């Protein structure tokens, strides 16, 4: 690590030698600090915090001078707030880079985030709410030799909390290449064509050193060493087509043999297909999407099972909800295998019609479904399981019998008058707990309603009333027992002050106490700085963003956030 920091400082300190006017550049940045103080609460399962106060903080500082950019992010987890991995504990420079553009090249040294296509074989990104950061550390070159042609090359290792990734061969080396061609930009005749065509292809390979892993026959005691592939390759091809109101985006990816802890150390090759199609005109839009994911966990360490060291990203095809009761049963992408479909229809009822009234009305319908793959297990190993075997066979177009998640939701958004705006939402969800790793639990069937009324008071003030209801006969987990009701009132003053009160009430709990999860918040914004303070109870649950999830433990106490940018 020291060597890397030294090299980085050297790079920066030597830069003025070949660059003029570096001090005439521009410095920008932002800052966020979260404090949490929570007390023990046995009713909701909140555990005692020995430190009394926990804190997560980071600041980004970016220096730009012409075609040269350098930046850093300092992070501090002293100690990590609840729900964040304890391995984040500590402080330091988590991200630093320098990049410059010259002719048709853009070169980045140090940390970077990057994505090839839809991310099926490579996506390096940060999702702070999930505690996920798989930033690359190495080199990236982007070449744009002609208009419409972009070629990206990457090499490096991925961040793993504060570990010195360069000191150990446990962390794999990621190499990749991506090329994307916009035919409309490249070919003169197609410049003004209504048919827009973009083609792309990627290759990514991870070097994971051979490690000793054995299959032990429990009866004979014989041990069978697994012959691990050290270079795990993957390739993807994609196309994006748009013609007037239509658009189509499709990508297919294939991954080589990659026995790992997530797939149970099977040698079956991975495969992913993702397709979206849409039609959109004024007042009407429809989007349909489908995907198949088959053994596509791709990490730069084969023993890793959490959210870290993901080389790729597998998008979820379910609605992303902002209303908390709608998101109580979230869907986690099944990297070992799933098939999913989603359809969205948006329709705007015109003004001055019977239903549209004076201001019109927006309608949205969403349907999504995710099921297992149709799997036929093949030969077992001498120990009687599937480690070190091909695992299974699966027909590409055939869905499995097991439903993971299904939802239909409907949303109506209507401006009632100059001062009132109403949103109504309904969702019916079928949730299989197996999708978040809980085997043997019963399915959850939930009806969820929301009504959100915003009342404008004067020119810049508003009051918002929100009511949510969740009805279910099932009692899943300690955080989702029976029926729920949530009421919120929020006051906004001149756009820079707000105060809100929320009560999330588990009134249908048939097992334990009918807990009120109340929460009071106030926030104030001055320029680019915002301060927010909350006090209340947070129920235990799961948060999922883009199909990637983490557990959120229960808490009872204060939460403060300061954000700022310059």
């Amino acid at each position, binding site marked *: 690590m020291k060597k890397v920091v030294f090299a980085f400082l050297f790079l920066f300190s030597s830069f003025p030698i070949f660059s003029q006017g570096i001090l005439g550049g521009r410095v920008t940045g932002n800052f966020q600090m979260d404090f949490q103080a929570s007390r023990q609460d046995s009713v909701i399962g909140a555990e005692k915090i020995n430190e009394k106060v926990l804190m997560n903080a980071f600041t980004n500082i970016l220096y730009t001078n012409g075609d040269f950019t350098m930046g850093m992010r300092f992070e501090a987890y002293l100690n990590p707030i609840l729900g964040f991995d304890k391995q984040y504990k500590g402080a330091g420079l988590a991200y630093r880079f320098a990049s410059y553009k010259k002719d048709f090249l853009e070169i980045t040294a140090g940390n970077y985030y990057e994505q090839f296509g839809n991310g099926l074989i490579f996506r390096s990104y940060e999702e702070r709410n999930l505690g996920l950061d798989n930033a690359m550390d190495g080199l990236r070159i982007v*070449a744009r*030799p*002609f208009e419409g*042609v972009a*070629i990206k*090359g990457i090499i490096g290792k991925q961040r793993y909390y504060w570990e010195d990734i360069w000191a150990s061969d446990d962390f794999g080396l990621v*190499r*990749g*290449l991506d*090329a994307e061609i916009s035919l409309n930009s490249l070919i003169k005749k197609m410049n003004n064509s209504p048919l827009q065509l973009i083609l792309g*292809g990627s*290759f*990514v*390979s991870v*070097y994971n050193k051979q490690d000793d892993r054995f*299959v032990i026959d429990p*009866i*004979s*005691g*014989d*041990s*069978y*060493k*697994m*012959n691990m*592939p*050290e*270079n*795990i*390759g*993957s*390739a993807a091809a994609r196309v994006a087509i748009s013609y007037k109101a239509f658009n189509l985006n499709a990508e297919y990816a294939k991954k*080589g*043999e990659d*026995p790992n802890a997530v797939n149970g150390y099977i*040698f079956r090759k991975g495969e992913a297909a993702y397709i979206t199609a849409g039609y959109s005109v004024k007042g009407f839009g429809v989007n349909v999407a489908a995907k198949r994911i088959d053994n596509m966990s791709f990490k730069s360490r084969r023993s890793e099972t959490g959210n870290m060291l993901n080389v790729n990203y597998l998008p979820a095809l379910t609605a992303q909800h902002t209303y908390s009761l709608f998101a109580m049963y979230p869907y986690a992408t099944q990297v070992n295998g799933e098939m999913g479909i989603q359809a969205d229809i948006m329709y705007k009822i015109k003004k001055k019609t019977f239903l549209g009234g004076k201001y019109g009305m927006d309608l949205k319908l969403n349907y999504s479904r995710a099921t297992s793959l149709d799997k036929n297990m093949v030969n077992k*190993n*001498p120990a009687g399981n599937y480690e*070190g*075997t*091909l695992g299974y066979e699966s027909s590409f177009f055939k869905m499995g019998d097991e439903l993971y998640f299904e939802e239909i939701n409907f949303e109506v958004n209507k401006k009632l008058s100059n001062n009132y705006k109403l949103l109504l939402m309904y969702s019916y969800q079928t949730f299989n707990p197996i999708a978040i790793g809980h085997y043997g639990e019963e399915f959850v069937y939930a009806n969820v309603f929301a009504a959100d009324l915003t009342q404008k008071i004067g020119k810049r003030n508003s009051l918002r009333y929100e009511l949510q209801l969740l009805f279910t006969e099932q009692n899943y987990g300690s955080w989702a027992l029976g029926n729920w009701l949530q009421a919120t009132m929020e006051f906004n003053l001149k756009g820079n002050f707000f105060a809100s009160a929320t009560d999330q009430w588990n009134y249908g709990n048939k097992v334990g106490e009918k807990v009120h999860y109340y929460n009071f918040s106030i926030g104030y914004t001055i320029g680019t700085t915002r301060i927010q303070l909350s006090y209340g109870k947070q129920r235990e649950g799961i948060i999922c963003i883009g199909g990637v999830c983490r557990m959120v433990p229960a808490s009872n106490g204060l939460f403060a956030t300061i954000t700022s940018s310059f």
Partner: protein
Amino acid sequence: MKINMKENIKSILCSIVLISLMVFLSCDNIEEDNFLVYPKGQTSQSTPITKNTSKQRILLEDYTGWKCTNCPRAAQKAAELITKYGEELVVMAVHSTSWATPSAANNNLDFRTEYGEKWADKFSCTALPTGLISRINSSGTFTNSDATWDNKIQEALSLKEHIMDINLGVELKEDNKVLVSTENVFLKPVSYPTLISIMIVESGIKGVQLNGDATFGAVPKIEDYTFNHVLRKNALIDYSLSSNGVESGTTISKNYILDIDNDIKDIENCEVIVFVSNSQTSEIVQVNHIEIQ
């Protein structure tokens, strides 16, 4: 300018192809047979099971040697017992001790094996001919004179508990190897560790045998004596089948690959013998044999 553009495109496309090839090739592809590195002698390949056992079988190990003048008598006895007991009896001729040491007098025909010598030593087979009946230790001794073999086999068949069956499949491979698939079905629980041994025996080998009894051929030596059930080299001996107890109903399937002994005269005259033994007492729990097709 156009030429430059074309040249640039050409070089960039070449670069893309080369780099893509490099990245694509940096992908290890392991053949299914090599996913697991099997212990020596074992393999992931298998061949269909064609020979089952459904009752208890007995292994007669005939310890013999070409210099042993009474051994033709014992061999004759073994042949008679095969006729009598049929599939219930499996015979293996173990040429061992100094009685089997080759010399110019027998044209240096050597049937000895490393494990045959060890067994002879372990079970005290020094005075030949002698035989082991499923390696049953009877009153402190394993060996039995050929005169008692019939009685001992009868006794073993009536007293020995039918604990397991060994079902076999065999396939001659092109690379001078024999693939043996075993399906070991435990009919009763077993509390001791068990070992499995797989070997090839050959019949119909002509050679010199000393003889002291004219009933069995020329005396003092038979020039064109036929040796049967000769234990050959490259066997897999005492591989672990179960390291602890095994429950009733358990089936353990294992596949073995044997190198064919270069001394074998005719593979079509060979058969594979597989036996499972109690690792604590050495007694053979079950045995089966199958011809190599």
